[in-house]
């Protein structure tokens, strides 16, 4: 029982950054933009979040700065793919090469060749700020979390309502499905796509900053460690719906937590097989659903205004 509870706590911990990144991907894809550059956005977000929280001493400002730099870098993506109609996946890849290089460079220049471990104070958990200490499982699950965790789940609920219950959300989805029809209805397709990039950049930056302001108190190059691509998998595995994405992130977080625990318990199966689960699951899901259900219809396609 203890084992199960610990795994649940650990899964929630591992899933949170994935939720931010997966929501970033979801907002992007719902506007018809497939973005594989989240890994890059998150890496620059995590570095800037780290630096700002180190300088100002406020993890919250770190998260905000992470969001800001995420938006800034993602504007390159937005301009190239929306205005210039560059191939989205290729451009996402370019971001993946550019942003981590920039992050590594800034870290090296800022800290020099100095070899001291730089640690920052992490964001307080709710129970920490309230002064509650308890070993109770429910208290730990529900209260011993940083505000970012509540924000993540709040955003999921907001997303579900937004895309299904509001006019604006339906318009947003229309841009990803039938941009030309949406344009004839008077929706500003280009505007929505840019807005999607702002949201995506902010969320991806927050997801990266979460790693250095709420999770680990140090920065290491490559600390995003493939989470951007797992988030991409989570969006597909969760069938492009807010609730589905949440479940997918929790499931992938669970796989990761299980993998760590199995290593500690030294079972015979190589741990890499557990790490494969998100990717294999995504391929299986894609293979089993037909092309008609596979996400927003114009996802990945450029939108040329002139073709109207």
């Amino acid at each position, binding site marked *: 029982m203890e084992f199960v509870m610990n795994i649940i706590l650990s899964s929630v911990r591992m899933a949170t950054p994935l939720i931010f990144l997966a929501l970033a991907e979801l907002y992007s894809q719902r506007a018809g933009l*497939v973005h594989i550059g989240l890994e890059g956005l998150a890496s620059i977000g995590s570095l800037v979040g780290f630096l700002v929280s180190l300088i100002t001493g406020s993890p919250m400002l770190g998260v905000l700065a992470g969001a800001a730099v995420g938006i800034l870098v993602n504007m390159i993506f937005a301009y190239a793919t929306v205005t210039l109609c560059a191939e989205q996946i290729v451009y996402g890849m370019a971001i993946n090469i550019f942003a981590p290089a920039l992050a590594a460079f800034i870290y090296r220049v800022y800290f020099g060749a100095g070899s001291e471990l730089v640690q920052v104070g992490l964001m307080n958990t709710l129970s920490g700020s309230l002064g509650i200490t308890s070993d109770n499982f429910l208290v730990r699950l529900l209260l011993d979390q940083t505000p970012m965790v509540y924000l993540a789940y709040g955003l999921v609920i907001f997303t579900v309502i937004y895309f299904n219950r509001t006019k604006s959300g339906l318009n947003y989805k229309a841009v990803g499905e039938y941009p030309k029809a949406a344009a004839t209805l008077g929706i500003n397709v280009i505007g929505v796509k840019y807005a999607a990039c702002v949201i995506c950049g902010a969320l991806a930056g927050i997801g990266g900053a979460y790693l250095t302001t709420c999770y680990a108190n140090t920065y290491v190059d490559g600390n995003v460690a493939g989470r951007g691509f797992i988030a991409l998998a989570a969006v597909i595995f969760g069938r492009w719906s807010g609730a589905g994405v949440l479940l997918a992130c929790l499931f992938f977080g669970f796989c990761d937590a299980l993998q760590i625990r199995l290593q500690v318990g030294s079972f015979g199966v190589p741990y890499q097989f557990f790490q494969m689960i998100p990717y294999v699951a995504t*391929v299986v899901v894609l293979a089993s659903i037909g092309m008609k259900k*596979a996400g927003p219809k114009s996802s990945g396609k450029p939108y040329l205004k002139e073709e109207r």
Partner: protein
Amino acid sequence: MKNSGKLVSFLVPIISILLAFVIGCIIMAVLGANPFVALESLWIGAFGSLRNVGTTLARSTPLIFTSLCACFAYRCGVFNLGGEGQFLMGSIVCCYIATQSGIEGLPAIILCLVGGAAAGGVWSLISGLLKVYRGQNEMIITIMLNYVATLFMGVVYTNWLRDGSVPQTQAVPDATQLSRLFGLRVTSAFVIALVVGLLVYYFLFYTSKGFQLRAVGLNMTAAEFNGFAVKKYILMSFIVSGAIAGLGGSAELLGTQFRLINGFGNGYGFDGVAMALIGQLHPLATILVAIFFAALRVGSTTMQAATGVPTSVSDIIQALVIVFTVAGLAMVKLPGFKAFLGRLTERRKEAA
């Protein structure tokens, strides 16, 4: 109009490279280093001596394979981003044959290369089948399969073929290693890469099958209307591009690394895609681009040692080249830009 279009698409990468270097120089100057000294040491590091040229060519070899892989697939309209996974699957099979079969020497080399190419082709075919028969986006599938292949290689070198105290496989026997050229670090793998490049070039531009394949890539609907077996060509491009990457994986294992280890082939797939695009999907231009990127990587260590500019500046320059070229190429394809270009050439004609 057509000529000026060609000229423009040739100019875009050149301008992008220049722009990237200008920004790189500004960054270096801001850091207090002399950008000209830095560029000079970058050049010396990459091409300053015969030995360095050998190193650069050796480093470019795997990139040539993965960029040819991307090049071939894209010509058929297939966005194979799985070069890395196919590269790794090729090297895994190659590693099994080289270290476990007991065969050594030339027969083993041939078997390894063929086995590696076959493994890459089969791994790529999975994505191809899912695209053709399930209508799925091959880009997502190939990315996912890259991760599966990387983790699978992890199992191989930490468990199944592990050798000794370090998580790595046994080394390829001396007799099975590819020979070095003129005592430099570059091996016959580079020659194989060049030959593959020439074959791809010949196939795409001088055979009727190659023409049909490109026709499928240019306009799938029209090709189908003309009675071309579109599905067959798509599957073929998956298999062939995967085989090129798999061959590259084998050649890299037999020529440079000799054993599977952590980080083997990391990033080569995406790098290859970028290089193919910068090379305008032309196999021979692609090879040149791959050598250019390899030179940037090899030279950056010399640059760091000479000027104290961190090697990540070189990474940033490389990334900027990609960022600018891809955006630039998209821009010149925009109707607005084409119209602008058209007006420009017309005016020139009038003037003449």
